[in-house]
């Protein structure tokens, strides 16, 4: 049993998520990710139960662990109480702790998520915030959202929201002392440390790839990881 497997065993979600897989493939049959990507949760669980560190390291550096959508359909259906979706959460955590995530195209995207959702949680107290959901980055939101985005304060007002204002209600301004508490929780429980690791490993990788990366969202590396799609992720059918 190797060091990486031991690290995985320290994550309660890994312990709870892996009993003994009989390779029936039920998880793969119902997995939305398996339908779209070259991905089989059955194979992933099978690799993990070999406890082979070389194979696990390969997995942690691969696109494979980033294909899952964490819908947890596999958890409901597994006849042996395995939870591939939970194993994915443990693998992704370790991949970021070790800095392996930057070795795959899908893994590198973590920096874009950290600089958007991660930033919004600390800045606004929400995982999403309307002024940040730009029609440019979200063309799929369509013309109604584009209209709403252009009139956001009036639309929110019309619908009874309390956008950016004090007191309770939809999209209220979260008081600064509460945002400070979130930051302290992040410092205390490892989120700040993870954010720092995502930043520092990404900066090293950007340098290695010869791409510009500053602290904003407008740079070559962020644009690249936010949009790049190679042809190996999916199988033509």
């Amino acid at each position: 049993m190797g060091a990486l497997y031991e690290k995985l065993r320290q994550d309660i979600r890994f312990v709870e998520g892996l009993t003994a897989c009989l390779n029936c493939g039920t998880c793969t049959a119902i997995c939305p990710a398996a339908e779209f990507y070259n991905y089989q949760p059955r194979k992933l669980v099978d690799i993990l139960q070999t406890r082979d560190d070389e194979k696990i390291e390969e997995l942690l550096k691969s696109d494979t662990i980033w294909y899952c959508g964490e819908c947890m359909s596999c958890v409901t259906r597994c006849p042996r109480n395995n939870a591939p979706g939970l194993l994915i959460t443990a693998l992704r955590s370790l991949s970021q702790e070790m800095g392996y995530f930057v070795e795959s195209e899908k893994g590198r995207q973590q920096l874009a998520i950290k600089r958007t959702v991660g930033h919004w949680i600390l800045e606004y107290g929400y995982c999403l915030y309307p002024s940040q959901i730009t029609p440019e980055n979200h063309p799929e939101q369509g013309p109604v959202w584009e209209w709403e985005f252009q009139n956001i304060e009036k639309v929110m007002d019309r619908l009874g929201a309390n956008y950016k204002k004090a007191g309770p209600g939809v999209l209220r301004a979260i008081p600064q002392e509460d945002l400070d508490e979130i930051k302290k929780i992040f410092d205390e429980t490892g989120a700040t440390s993870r954010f720092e690791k995502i930043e520092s490993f990404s900066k090293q990788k950007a340098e290695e790839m010869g791409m510009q990366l500053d602290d904003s969202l407008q740079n070559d590396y962020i644009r690249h990881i936010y949009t790049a799609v190679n042809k190996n992720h999916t199988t033509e059918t």
Partner: protein
Amino acid sequence: MKIEGKRLIWNDYQKEIAEDNYFYVRSCVRQNFFPGAEKTFLRYMKEMGKDVFENPSHTTCSGIGYHSDIVPFETAMTMVARQFALMTEAGYRNFVTSCITSFGLYSETLETWHHFPEIEEKIRGHLKNATGREFVKPENLAHASDVTFKLRKEISEAGKYRLVNHVTGAPIRVVEHIGCHYSRMFPSKGVGGAEYPYVLVGMIEEWGGEVIDYPERRHCCGFGFRQYLVKANRGYSISASKKKFDSMKPYKPELILTNCPGCPMFLDRWQYAISEMEGTTYGEGGQGIPVVTYEELAGLILGYDPWDLGLQVHQVPVEPLLDKIGIPYDPEKKFLDKDGNSMGQPKSPTHLKFY
């Protein structure tokens, strides 16, 4: 739908839902995309004489960050603990959440603490160190759709409209879509379990509609967290929704009803995107299939003005549904601001019929 077998399953998944005195926490996605839905929930709860309290200091639970894996589990559990502390400080014991991702995270956290009390102690320590707060765990954890399900008969009795075509008398044909994190991980936490959840079916039946069973009924809408958040991955997201639309289309649904805040956004927006990409529309005569939340549907049944509910911010127009039920609306007021002034109006899509 053959429901005899399902009724037996539903009997195994009866969930206790508190009667009154709820501590309410909001949803990031719903606040951004369906702000009128939360307003509507609080409106009918008040009209039914229920006590629902909101503390403005509550924040995101960090669930989207957790499930896109930038937020560690210990952080997410401590964020949950902070919400419980706010509930405790306000003197409440019944916790109700607007968000399904949150509901899943609260359930996951409480289950983890139940099986591993040492983790609960660790998180209590984290919360105390970071904020000085302490908490009592909720006596009752519910999603706002559970509470609405519990009130479905009262809503029906107070209602002005039924889910029935007012011309033909035929029941409106409804697809129900349950958010994945409602009960997939913990079937006992959801009304009706994971394979045949009853929470929305109960509302549809009570309000006069017909539930459609179709092959991909339980398929995810395709949010997939990172699979939507990053532009490069959105092919995953739209493909999952398309699979559902293609599967439900032969059954001619007239409405999609959802309980998760994200699902209605995706099932609404991806119909637009598919129409732009392929020219395909899934409703009758170039229309889409209207998608509404349970709060919006309850509001329609109760006779609230559709534009007060926020149905104008849906990309797929809801007017065909309103016309069928016979709900009056003023098209001239659809895009007006609070004071009755014009805010302009959205551009029309290329293929999807717009009103």
